[in-house]
């Protein structure tokens, strides 16, 4: 590869084959991305920690393996940005929270270990809303990430750092985690691709839990094929996670290459659209539906009558689980401890002071909400009812998947909004996830991919595809088909329309 090629503009698939062919060294690729980060990240703020030394060492190990004739794995030498909610041994892991400032985990998450084994080069840790609670990264204790399309706007959340890193060409791949849309909604507002796999497809071991029954790590990329390549590296059974599925990973890479929706039944979910959705979002969505029909898909409308209750159920289940998951952050075994020198405090006081100082307002709100919902006397009305709604949502999906092979909707009701616009209005913020939450409640996989720019603001719009559990390959097949048709129509990838940083 010649020196004039901007290595940061390549897809992951292109980078991997160039490294495997010896056209470029993994070390050069890593260095190019580290340079890009150094050049733009003061404005984007996608990264909380950049591990230049570790990244170059990992890249050099890939180069050494190649020169000694070893067979490289399909993503060897490709740089990646890791969401700061996954542990990486010896590397700071903060979850965007003050309470974990300076903590260096003594172990690797299973996802991290699989990436390392595959020769993926981890550049650093990306910014996020504190403990993944939010849709804008404004709830990060370390300052918001800025959307590369417009630095005054949010990059989505909670995984805004991972999405922005990809959109800003700081990395071709990133890992996100999705509890209610934290991979898909940032993908939608940054013009990138993000996939939440089937619950249990990717190990949660080493993923700092927000809501255990909803959390799922997944790939972020600029193309559907790149996402599929990353998906196949991180997915698979893990005996360290009891909820990990002991089943073969669907052939997502093959599906992304097939990219054929002829005869595929595509269901448009009636309840996820219309009122409350921005006009430009609706317009681009309708055009995409028409395009899919042109490609030979059979488009039907399906109804999911309980989806209007999904947001309420989610905001009971998530806070309940999170109030318990976040109890361990008490200043005893790791992380922040404050207030020890003020008077002669007891351990109880020190714990309470530490948690007050360490958690931001959104984490505090959700912990107290969950504490309330699980309390004796309120459990049945709140947490218990929410779990029943979860059953109803699952039944809605089961019925819908009898009529359609995949379901589609806009990923988010709006394009990227201005930083600060919804910061102290929790309910308005929560509405960003209204279309993505049902998939988390049911455990099914979902993808967001870019379908154009909203005419009124010129900002990216995302389309969500959902499939039945363990049929993740359907997302990649349909997504790649739509992506290919849009690319033909536009003549170039959507990110080329983003302003230069």
């Amino acid at each position: 590869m010649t020196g004039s090629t901007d290595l940061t503009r390549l897809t992951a698939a292109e980078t991997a084959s160039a490294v495997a062919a010896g056209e470029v060294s993994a070390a050069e690729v890593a260095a190019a991305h580290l340079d890009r980060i150094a050049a733009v990240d003061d404005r984007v703020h996608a990264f909380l920690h950049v591990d230049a030394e570790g990244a170059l060492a990992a890249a050099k190990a890939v180069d050494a393996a190649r020169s000694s004739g070893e067979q490289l794995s399909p993503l060897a030498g490709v740089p990646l940005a890791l969401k700061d909610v996954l542990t990486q041994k010896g590397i700071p892991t903060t979850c965007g929270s003050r309470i974990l400032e300076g903590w260096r985990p003594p172990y690797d998450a299973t996802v991290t270990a699989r990436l390392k084994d595959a020769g993926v080069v981890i550049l650093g840790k990306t910014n996020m809303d504190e403990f993944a609670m939010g849709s804008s990264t404004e709830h990060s204790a370390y300052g918001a990430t800025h959307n590369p399309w417009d630095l005054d706007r949010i990059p989505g959340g909670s995984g805004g750092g991972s999405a922005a890193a990809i959109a800003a060409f700081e990395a071709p791949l990133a890992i996100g985690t999705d509890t209610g849309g934290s991979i898909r909604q940032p993908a939608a507002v940054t013009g990138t691709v993000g996939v939440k796999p089937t619950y249990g497809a990717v190990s949660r071991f080493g993923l700092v839990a927000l809501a255990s029954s909803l959390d799922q790590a997944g790939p972020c990329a600029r193309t559907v094929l790149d996402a599929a390549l990353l998906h196949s590296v991180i997915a698979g059974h893990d005996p360290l996670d009891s909820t990990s599925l002991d089943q073969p990973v669907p052939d997502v890479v093959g599906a992304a290459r097939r990219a054929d929706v002829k005869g595929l039944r595509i269901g448009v979910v009636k309840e996820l659209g219309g009122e409350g959705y921005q006009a430009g979002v609706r317009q681009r969505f309708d055009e995409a539906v028409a395009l899919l029909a042109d490609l030979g898909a059979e488009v039907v409308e399906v109804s999911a009558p309980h989806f209007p209750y999904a947001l309420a159920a989610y905001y009971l289940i998530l806070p309940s689980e999170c109030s318990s998951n976040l109890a361990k952050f008490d200043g005893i075994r790791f992380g922040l401890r404050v207030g020890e020198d003020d008077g002669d405090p007891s351990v109880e006081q020190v714990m309470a002071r530490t948690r007050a100082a360490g958690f931001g307002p959104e984490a505090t709100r959700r912990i107290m909400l969950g504490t309330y919902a699980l309390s004796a006397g309120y459990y049945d009305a709140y947490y218990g009812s929410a779990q029943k709604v979860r059953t109803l949502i699952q039944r809605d999906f089961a019925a819908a998947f009898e009529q359609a092979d995949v379901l589609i909707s806009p990923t988010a009701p709006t394009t990227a909004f201005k930083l600060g616009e919804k910061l102290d209005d929790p309910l308005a913020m929560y509405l960003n996830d209204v279309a993505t939450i049902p998939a988390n409640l049911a455990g099914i996989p979902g993808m967001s991919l870019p379908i154009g720019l909203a005419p009124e603001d010129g900002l990216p719009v995302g389309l969500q595809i959902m499939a039945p559990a363990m049929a993740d390959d359907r997302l990649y097949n349909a997504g790649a088909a739509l992506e290919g048709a849009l690319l033909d129509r536009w003549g170039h990838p959507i990110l080329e329309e983003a302003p230069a940083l």
Partner: protein
Amino acid sequence: MSTDTTEKVLPYDDVVASFDPVLGLEVHVELGTATKMFCGCPTTFGAAPNTQVCPTCLGLPGSLPVVNKVGVESAIRIGLALNCSIAEWCRFARKNYFYPDMPKNFQTSQYDEPIAYDGYLDVDVETDEGVKTFRIGIERAHMEEDTGKTTHQGGATGRIHGADYSLVDYNRAGIPLIEIVTKPIEGTGKYAPEVARAYVTALRELLRGLGVSDVKMEQGSLRCDANVSLRRTPSDTFGTRTETKNVNSLRSIERAVRYEMTRQAAVLEDGGSITQETRHWHEDTGITTSGRSKEEAEDYRYFPEPDLVPIAPSREWVEELRTSLPENPAVRRARLQQVWGISDLDMQTVLNAGALDVVEDTVAAGADQAAARKWWLGELARVANERGVELADLPITPAQVAGVEALVSEGTLNDKLARQVIEGVLAGEGEPDAVVASRGLAVVSDDGPLLAAIDEALAAQPDVADKIRGGKVQAAGAIVGAVMKATRGQADAGRVRALLLERLGVSE
């Protein structure tokens, strides 16, 4: 905490004349699995602090639990041995409360879906009318995890109160526990304390027989909390109960229940009312004291553990585990009593001493049942009592006891020498043969030295010699005694007597 260390008590006879006690017993058993309940860390007792820990049992961010299969099997086997139903489907739940020895600030436990429920255990207690069987209802047996251990530093006593700070070791955190809870135990009347003790004794025997735990109360692998309440008559509703914690020996269980009955009765007789509270048992003074009163009722905010999937034991699995159960203890007791041919009272003595296993093993190693009982209930019981340990924990095995007894029956040792050999084994001097050799304890069986000693004794006591020759055979004892003394006990007294009479030409 204890503002009232000298509370009034009522004499026990008065208590049982005026009140009907109701008990509830909660026993926590630490399983003897190789690894913890939810991670692969070892469970070895006494390891260096915080060396048997991993991200999971330390509650580090990102860690996850995975259930130990043997822990579940043990829970099911315990449930079956207690005649419980085994749940077809159950879940773990999180019990949320903050405490520094609990790494996650919630305990992974079971709440409204225990793995085993609704069983019973029959226990025998000696009453004025002979041995009576009480059926103790089992409410539930469920799985949970242990906490870490806290050491309190500074202050006067090493106790929690007055300490300057504390140190936490999480080696114990996550070790599997089974909590076994009885239904309210009614109808025991004045025998309530004995029934409580007999229940824990029988439970311990059952658990040991299952091989699921080492059930060492002094090491905390079996812990008991006793709920006690009183009412005027059995037809009344239950009175307010107290829960006494830290009752960690069989004797203490009996004493603590008795003490709580006398204390509560005194309060009630004075027109007072019982406060529902936790109380602490003090082994040294034999009393309970009030725990710190809670300002607010506990609200544990239980909910199903989302990091663990439900457990649905197939009926095939349960039946397979049932076939692996050892003989029912009651059946086993009856069988051994018949084989040994001993009375109810003798059997009860063995049971009360907790000697059934060791006696059985000693017999199995070749000893006569009477001899085995004699050693374990006599000399060895005395030593165990002195040392404050269980018979099974003495540094002598049933095989060694049987070995000593074999030396007695073949004539190598007499009783007195055998006691010295036992003493040597207990002192760590090796196997019985080695002790005999090193201490030079064998009976003198060569007639030569014995005859010489007899002649010497006869010469020293010519008047006694004459009496024996004159037919007063009972006078032989004095000469035999002198010979035994001269040979420092290493002669066989029977042989000495026979040789003496032969020497003097006298017959019995």
